[in-house]
């Protein structure tokens, strides 16, 4: 599923000979063989916008989700491994960021930049979405820390960092992957929401922006369902697919979950 969209993202633009913002056809056309997803009130090709809009979704998922996971790992590892005061402190920080409704924060930050690109957006999301990853990873690290092979490494005088990355990290790779996947999906959702309320990127096209435009231009009342259904559906599909993939992995990694 995800792959399907990924492919669509890459080859999509080849299917269409239009540019997202160009007024290519008659206004407000329902889907037809020429305009696969119909056209907007200005006669822009929805399908074109759609395929171009997919790209930012993945970009943000990658960077935003990735960044969040990285920060989460850093803090999670250190807190989980070092324990004690360090843990107490980092834990507190995490809790604080966790409790602050980061989205509201994101809004304000977003509003702070008057001109925004997808990259910036992704980075902001990354910086606000890490806490629960940190929390989860910390817990994992905690349980691993006392394993004998870690003790062994510690006794053999390995540097903490080395231990973390040579002993601990590999042993929870599967887990990290899952965390990343979740963050990936999360980032896409947050981005879509931001875009939708008009605090997303001020240039380019994204699925969220498409919905934003559709609503702004009264697609609902003019019955132009082809304008607002595809973007949302795509997001739901992608993220949903990601989640399900995650369950798949989860079941592989802890057989307990497996259905019998």
């Amino acid at each position: 599923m995800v792959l399907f969209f990924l492919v669509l993202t890459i080859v999509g633009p080849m299917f269409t000979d239009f540019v997202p913002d160009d007024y290519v056809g008659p206004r407000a056309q329902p889907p037809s063989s020429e305009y696969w997803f119909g056209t907007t009130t200005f006669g822009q090709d929805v399908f074109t916008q759609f395929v171009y809009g997919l790209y930012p979704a993945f970009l943000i998922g990658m960077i935003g989700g990735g960044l969040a996971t990285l920060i989460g790992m850093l803090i999670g590892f250190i807190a989980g491994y070092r324990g004690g005061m360090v843990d107490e402190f980092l834990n507190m920080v995490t809790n604080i960021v966790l409790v602050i409704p980061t989205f509201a924060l994101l809004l304000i930050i977003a509003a702070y930049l008057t001109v925004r690109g997808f990259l910036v957006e992704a980075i902001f999301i990354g910086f606000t979405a890490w806490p629960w990853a940190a929390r989860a990873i910390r817990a994992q690290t905690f349980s691993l820390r006392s394993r004998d092979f870690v003790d062994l490494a510690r006794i053999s005088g390995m540097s903490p960092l080395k231990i973390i990355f040579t002993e601990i990290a590999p042993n929870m790779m599967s887990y990290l992957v899952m965390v990343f996947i979740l963050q990936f999906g999360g980032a896409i959702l947050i981005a879509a929401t931001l875009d939708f309320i008009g605090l997303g990127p001020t240039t380019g096209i994204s699925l969220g922006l498409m919905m934003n435009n559709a609503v702004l231009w009264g697609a609902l009342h003019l019955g132009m369902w082809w304008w607002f259904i595809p973007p949302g559906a795509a997001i739901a599909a992608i993220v949903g697919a990601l989640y399900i993939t995650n369950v798949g992995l989860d079941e592989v990694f802890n057989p307990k979950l497996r259905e019998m």
Partner: protein
Amino acid sequence: MKRYFTRKIFIYILTFFFAVTIDWLIPRFMPGNPVQNLLARASLRAEAANVMYGYFTRAFGLDVPIWQQYLNFWNALFHGDLGISVYLFPQPVIKIIMRAVPYDIFLLLPAILLSWIAGNKFGAFAARTKWLDNTVLPFGYILTATPYMWLGILLAWVFGLVLDIFPISGAYSYAMAPHFSWIFIWSALRHWFLPFASLFLVMFGGWAIGMRNMIIYELEADYSHYLEALGAPRKLVRKYAFRNAILPQITGLALQLGVIVAGALVTEIVFSYPGIGYLILAAIQNQDYFLIQGCFLFIIVGVLLANFAIDIIYVIVDPRTRIGMAGETA
């Protein structure tokens, strides 16, 4: 136990402090100048504009040095004074917010609680019930993956326009003033339903999934096996499993609050439901320092309180925390 709470409260206070500081800081980084925006709305002659610019800068206390503005902010805060809105000049921010809050309570409380309860019940039920597990849960995953606003738009479109059985904007009919009568309540309910539904559905999916997985973990736990080994009926085993599986879900609720706020925000925008979310967006678009601060502050307080409540509940239901050997919960 005591230590546990003192620790919690300390964290909360700290959080509050940080949040408030950020809250105060960020709007001041924002481009534009509220007083200018205010005056931009009034097309004034140059001289008049200049005169009034100075006048209002003073009126809004933006003429004193930054650090002093910060102190004043705290000071005012403790007097429950959040300043005056620029965009809703000259209303006091606190008043504006208070007008919006009931709508949020009305919308969020049921949505969160009901979806949580229903989701858990359903998830527990679905777990290890093959056909449900295979049919309904994928659906649940899609639900959680659905952007709030999109579901909102869809509902609005289907029920509001195509079927035309629910209104899609406002909190109650434009043909009434709020008053205590069944028609009003009915009208309020009808306006409330769609936003509620879209919030409810998305959250429901999440809780169901979470619970389902939790239950399965718990059913595989030693104590479950022991019960089975002693021939306890499925009912009892599940009862225990549910009881324990609910704990992480409670924590989850606390963790989710932030996300829920976001969801509520867009939902309110889709249905132009006059809650805080609706307000904060307008405030941001209008560069209204004081209103932004107010709303954000309010959300913080709300979330903190909710978290605290959840902590207390958690302690009540989970003896382990009560016995005091509890590490940290959400």
